[in-house]
């Protein structure tokens, strides 16, 4: 295949070579079950526990507070459903506060809890995608038991003030969960600073494998299991461990955190170059989100008068992978709830493209993408009826 430019690192990242090297012996020679007492098992157990220590160190937790699982959706479900099931009958603390811009694994799980009789408040965001903490304070009630917010938004890259939210939560004796999937490896994540009780992590967002994640559960906090079974993960997450996934995750998070400061600077410069050139060289473009509170890897830009899936497909044929908030690229045909939440404008969601850069992105990638975009956008606008209408209306 010819050289591809991958600007969809928020969807997933490729597995980095150091991770492949780390897991290779466990794919080829070391095949024991970490629960076994013999040599084959003990070797694997040692590696799994070393990975646990690395994940813990990366987020300033204790290894005993890390529970490996299959993905972030499982982590987020475990917190919301585990919290609900733990309350039992006649639950008093049956009110959960979350936001209008969460990932579907929170959004749809919260909706499922609503059907079970829970009360959910979805905090709104402003035109730049930011939360107003007064809305949070005002939403807290006698029966509020849990606050769940994301650290970084997956579509627009906004960083949310989780430390302040954590303070507010604990002033009111409310448990606090952070979905940190889009934060780890991009900004520093410290569970003690945040003051959270639960935190979700997923390996494939920082060059680890797909199919493995971890949930931080602060010592002393209890969630009901989703699964029943064996003693793995102290009985909290039964099932034979995803050994290679876990070992790879340990290596990936260790490297991601070690490289974070330098890499964030490098990627931010590339992202800024991309964004600046697009805004200057392509008319009727706009940044979606808040450029002053954003991860260094992401830029979401709306291209007025053209539809996102058309842009995505055209760029794809030119060797560039991006994603869109447009309904037309999703199977449920709904425009992005995140971008629609910003200003209630589905048209902007239809026209928005997310560029998410990563450790393999180069300045050549950025410049080629800008040149390709210039052609793509002017071509698609050349037969867009709303562009035509706009141009005619502004002629006079």
């Amino acid at each position, binding site marked *: 295949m010819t050289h591809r430019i991958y600007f969809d690192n928020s969807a997933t990242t490729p597995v980095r070579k150091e991770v492949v090297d780390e897991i290779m012996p466990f794919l080829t020679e070391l095949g024991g079950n970490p629960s076994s007492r013999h040599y084959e098992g003990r070797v694997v157990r040692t590696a799994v526990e070393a990975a646990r220590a690395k994940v813990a160190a990366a987020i300033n937790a204790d290894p005993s507070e890390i529970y490996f699982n299959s993905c972030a959706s499982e982590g987020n479900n475990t917190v919301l459903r585990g919290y609900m099931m733990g309350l039992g009958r006649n639950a008093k603390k049956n009110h959960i506060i979350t936001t209008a811009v969460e990932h579907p694994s929170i959004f749809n799980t919260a909706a499922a809890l609503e059907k079970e009789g829970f009360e959910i408040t979805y905090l709104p965001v402003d035109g730049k995608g930011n939360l107003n903490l007064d809305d949070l304070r005002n939403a807290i009630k006698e029966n509020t038991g849990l606050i769940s917010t994301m650290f970084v938004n997956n579509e627009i890259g906004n960083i949310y003030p989780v430390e302040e939210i954590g303070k507010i939560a604990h002033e009111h004796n409310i448990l606090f969960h952070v979905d940190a999937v889009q934060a780890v490896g991009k900004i520093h994540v410290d569970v003690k600073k945040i003051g959270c009780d639960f935190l979700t992590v997923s390996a494939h967002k920082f060059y680890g494998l797909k199919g493995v994640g971890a949930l931080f559960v602060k010592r002393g906090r209890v969630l009901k299991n989703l699964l029943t079974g064996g003693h793995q993960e102290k009985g909290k997450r039964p099932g034979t461990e995803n050994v290679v996934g876990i070992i790879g995750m340990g290596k990936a998070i260790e490297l991601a955190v070690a490289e974070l400061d330098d890499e964030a600077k490098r990627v931010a410069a590339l992202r800024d170059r991309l964004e600046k050139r697009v805004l200057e060289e392509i008319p009727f473009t706009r940044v979606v989100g808040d450029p002053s509170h954003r991860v260094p890897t992401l830029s979401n830009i709306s291209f007025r008068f053209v539809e996102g899936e058309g842009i995505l497909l055209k760029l794809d044929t030119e060797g560039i992978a991006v994603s869109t908030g447009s309904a*037309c690229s999703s199977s449920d045909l709904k425009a992005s709830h995140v971008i629609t939440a910003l200003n209630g404008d589905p048209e902007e969601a239809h026209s928005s493209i997310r560029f998410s850069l990563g450790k393999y992105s180069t300045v050549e990638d950025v410049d080629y993408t800008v040149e390709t975009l210039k052609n793509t956008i002017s071509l698609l606008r050349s037969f867009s009826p709303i562009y035509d209408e706009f141009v005619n209306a502004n002629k006079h």
Partner: protein
Amino acid sequence: MNYTEKVMDHFLHPRNVGKIDNPNAVAEVGNAQCGDIIKLFLRINPEGIIEDISFETFGCGAAIATSSMTTEMVKGKHIDEALLVTRDVVAEELGGLPASKMHCSNLASEALHKAIHEYKAKYNLH
């Protein structure tokens, strides 16, 4: 839900795009909220033959490809024959469309029907 080669061909090389000179039937369907707007321009001669046709489309790959295919299928045909072109016929001609695209993004035939019916009403051709 991948697009067929034919859909991609019509998306990447759309036929009959833009505006023709002196159209005598024009129709627009869809809205920006749902993500698709299709506008057709037709020039129909006194014998009822579609001499020329073109489109402008705001929409996804399927919306652009179905617009292109619709114009190609009816160019040079009599308007009554053109009315036999429905969204199912267009989709079939393209080798199929993903299920989710059948309705929202396959509106060009509706625009065609709308344009022809309005043309017929205008000239009392019933």
